[in-house]
């Protein structure tokens, strides 16, 4: 069905021993002399941890940066919502942590589907991130001695997570935003808030610009640059309901894909085990309860179905099934996300779920409160308990929380090489938008680490290496490539405005979300995926026939904004399912029911699937043509592939 190309992707991973690769690479990368830097204009799309840190650092180095985001201020990027913490191999707790261990935990947590060299580099620079953030004034939690405090997170047996109450993402982003503000004031970074990237412009085979639309005025503009950096976050909202912000989208990366950038591992989507359960159709998003809660909370459901409707405090300990502790005694409540999520689905499928629709499990703090006192628990998690009470009206100090898995993070993204450059020269991709470091499952507190690693410490070395050969090559926007891209963008907007049907965007998006959640969510199988692949094109047709997008394009028009994003999700969903169907194995968060161990764990097939799947767009002809698959074999020089065990 698909054309498959094996081994034509070059990751440009440097030679040499794992722990020397990055140093050697930096030592030999080409540099741009300080006087030449201001001659380069760098386009950075996104102002979250990845884009914000990249823009600020490149500005500091003397490049001229143009930074875009869709929110009204760069400080509102969705990184702001991260709660639990950020990992770093500082070994401040003297509990045996090291760069190697953080690397190994990440590779293993990702079920051996990420690149060794990238992941090692991530662990290697993790310490610098904490140094940098502390210097910026990020108010991390401290011990009484004044030293930095740590907590534990899922998938690790050491305490290496740094945090700022339950608002770590907010504080890291505000640190990064302050660095960005300093550069805006210095004139090196020009910020374009409420400006959406709608297309990538490729000139002579290189990424040299973008087409944007001002969300405030509707004005469409062409922007030329010497390189384009995409830092546009994840695509979890393809499922409609997720823990992402309303505006999170796949538009920037998907449109780059349509221009030739490869999309890697789109089916690696993470479902987070601890979210507030879904309550009704009106709901516009799901709210995460930080994984850090699993440090002190115990997860359980009743042993017998007949107890599910009883008030939890009336169910005696002997009648409760602490299923994570039972199945995974050494990691217990801290087993990795994919495993904890699937275990929750399993007990609910058995009819032992609690709350409305039986789609929930308890997360109980009674023991921790007895052991540590309510004050300590409130100091650790007070704001999360408040959020929970606001949404559900229940007091979790008195009755256990009810939680259920929800779509949270996307490991897939645009394919990049070791330099974080896509297959399109000049197009760099950082943060959640790329596919690089987390394999088939991301460990908690590692996304913040990756975003900042990419932006502060990797891109500033690898981008100049590209730029050094690009002096004076920035094209003018009079080139036909720009005009063509602009024309396409306008045509798409006109087409959306002309549909004039009678259905709302949300109703179609919700339908898509439900379909994906059921057929391509926590568990997937061939028949279900084939069914989804049959239904998605029909839903897309329905969209282009029945949806109503009011207003016009020359104005502040939120319906039009959303329409463009939903249209892209409707195409992207197909790629997601094709990837899930083609990856005929289970690994990490990608659980194909056909492939499981006797006790229901993901069963990898390293012989046939220890590869990155990178998809190439093949155009559309009424329907989307089947994309072309490129495979990058993953080479493991240091770690041994093993069956993941958290027992």
């Amino acid at each position: 069905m698909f054309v498959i190309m094996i081994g034509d992707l070059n990751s440009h991973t440097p030679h040499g021993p794992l722990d020397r690769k990055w140093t050697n690479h930096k030592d030999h990368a080409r540099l741009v002399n300080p006087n030449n830097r201001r001659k380069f204009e760098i386009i950075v799309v996104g102002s979250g941890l990845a884009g914000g840190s990249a823009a600020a650092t490149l500005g500091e180095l003397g490049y001229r940066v143009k930074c875009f985001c869709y929110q009204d201020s760069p400080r509102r990027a969705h990184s702001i919502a991260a709660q639990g913490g950020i990992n770093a191999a500082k070994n401040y707790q003297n509990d045996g942590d090291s760069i190697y261990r953080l690397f190994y935990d990440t590779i293993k947590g990702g079920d051996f589907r990420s690149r060794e060299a990238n992941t090692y580099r991530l662990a290697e620079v993790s310490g610098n991130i904490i140094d940098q953030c502390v210097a910026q004034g990020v108010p991390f939690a401290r011990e009484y001695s004044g030293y930095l405090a740590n907590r534990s997170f899922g998938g690790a047996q050491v305490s290496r997570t740094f945090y700022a109450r339950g608002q770590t993402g907010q504080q890291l982003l505000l640190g990064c935003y302050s660095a960005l503000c300093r550069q805006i004031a210095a004139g090196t970074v020009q910020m374009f808030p409420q400006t959406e990237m709608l297309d990538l412009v490729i000139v002579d085979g290189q990424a040299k610009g973008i087409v944007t639309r001002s969300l405030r005025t509707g004005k469409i503009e062409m922007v030329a640059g010497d390189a384009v950096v995409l830092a546009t976050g994840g695509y979890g909202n393809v499922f409609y309901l997720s823990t992402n912000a309303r505006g999170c989208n796949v538009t920037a990366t998907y449109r780059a894909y349509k221009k030739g950038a490869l999309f890697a591992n789109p089916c690696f989507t993470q479902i987070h085990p601890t979210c507030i359960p879904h309550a009704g159709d009106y709901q516009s998003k799901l709210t995460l309860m930080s994984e850090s809660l699993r440090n002190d909370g115990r997860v359980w459901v009743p042993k017998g179905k007949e107890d599910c409707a009883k008030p939890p405090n009336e169910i005696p300990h002997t009648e409760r099934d602490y299923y994570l502790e039972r199945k995974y005694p050494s990691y217990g409540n801290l087993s990795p996300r994919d495993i904890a999520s699937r275990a929750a689905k399993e007990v609910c499928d058995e009819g032992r779920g609690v709350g409305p629709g039986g789609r929930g499990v308890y997360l109980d703090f009674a023991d921790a409160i007895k052991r540590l006192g309510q004050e300590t628990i409130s100091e650790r998690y007070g704001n999360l308990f408040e959020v929970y009470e606001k949404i559900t009206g229940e007091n979790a100090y008195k009755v256990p929380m009810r939680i259920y898995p929800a779509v949270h993070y996307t490991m897939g993204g645009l394919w990049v090489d070791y330099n974080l450059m896509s297959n399109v020269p000049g197009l760099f991709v950082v943060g959640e938008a790329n596919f690089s470091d987390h394999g088939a499952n991301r460990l908690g507190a590692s996304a913040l680490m990756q975003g900042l690693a990419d932006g502060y410490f990797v891109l500033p070395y690898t981008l100049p290496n590209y730029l050094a050969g690009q002096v004076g090559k920035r094209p003018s926007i009079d080139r036909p490539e720009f005009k063509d891209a602009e024309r396409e963008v306008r045509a798409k907007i006109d087409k959306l405005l002309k549909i004039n049907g009678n259905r709302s965007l949300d109703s179609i998006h919700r339908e898509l979300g439900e379909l994906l959640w059921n057929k391509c969510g926590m568990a997937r199988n061939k028949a279900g995926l084939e069914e989804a692949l049959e239904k998605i094109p029909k839903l897309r047709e329905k969209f282009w026939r029945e949806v109503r997008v009011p207003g016009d394009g020359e104005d502040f028009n939120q319906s039009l904004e959303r329409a463009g994003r939903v249209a892209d999700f409707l195409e992207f969903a197909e790629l997601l399912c094709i990837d899930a169907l083609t990856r005929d194995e289970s690994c990490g968060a990608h659980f194909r029911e056909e492939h499981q161990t006797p006790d229901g764990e993901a069963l990898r097939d390293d012989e046939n699937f220890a590869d990155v799947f990178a998809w190439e767009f093949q155009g559309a002809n009424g329907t989307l043509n089947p994309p072309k698959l490129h495979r990058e074999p993953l080479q493991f020089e240091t770690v041994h592939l093993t069956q993941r065990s958290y027992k």
Partner: protein
Amino acid sequence: MNFRLRVWRQKDRKSRGRLINYDATDIPPQASLLEMLDIMNERLLLRGEEPIAFDSDCREGICGTCSLTVNGEAHGPDHPGAACELYMRKFKEGETIVIEPFRLKSFPIVKDLVIDRSALDRIVQAGGFISARTGSAPEANSILVPKHDADVSMEAAACIGCGACAAACPNASAMLFTAAKVSHLATLPQGETERVRRVVSMVHAMDAEGFGNCTNIYECEAVCPAEISASFIAKLNREYSRATLKRSSGE
């Protein structure tokens, strides 16, 4: 549940706006105020009317995007919390709910309930940072911060930058916003070097944006979704006097 809504509609910055009545019927009590607006927008759309423009993003009270005045109060009656954390079950059946944007000169209206808060960004650009060049930072644990100071700093740093403080203030003062950033950085040893310059520049930027003065009314504290204490304003005043004194004595 059923409600009578009165919603501010305004075509663009220059047009005149007014309150329009809508009946919101059959609203699930568990829906948030913004989800209620989503439901209304879906209905308006199907009736061929233009949906109500309002801003939101994270919908969990941390991004600071939503900026509604509900029944005369910034972020509505359920403090502390942003408008996205306000649930319909908190209102009475049949209640009239008036929904307007944050109103002040420094936050011009873009459309309906959407405002322009770039003034707040410019205050931070004036000096709300520590100039720590990427790569130049010392080992993190070489800077010790007493737990108490770290906690106080975090309390100030928790500001979500929504601007409710200025919207609620009869003087349209952005003192709480500015005080939070100044206090966050002035409480930490890393912030010491730029302490004087920072507070002076930020206060000047705040004045230049047309925000008013603080006269201790404390409405800001009452509506702040992040529960930033007004005592930080006293700290800002101290920081500012200290800075101007240092400057005038030629230090």
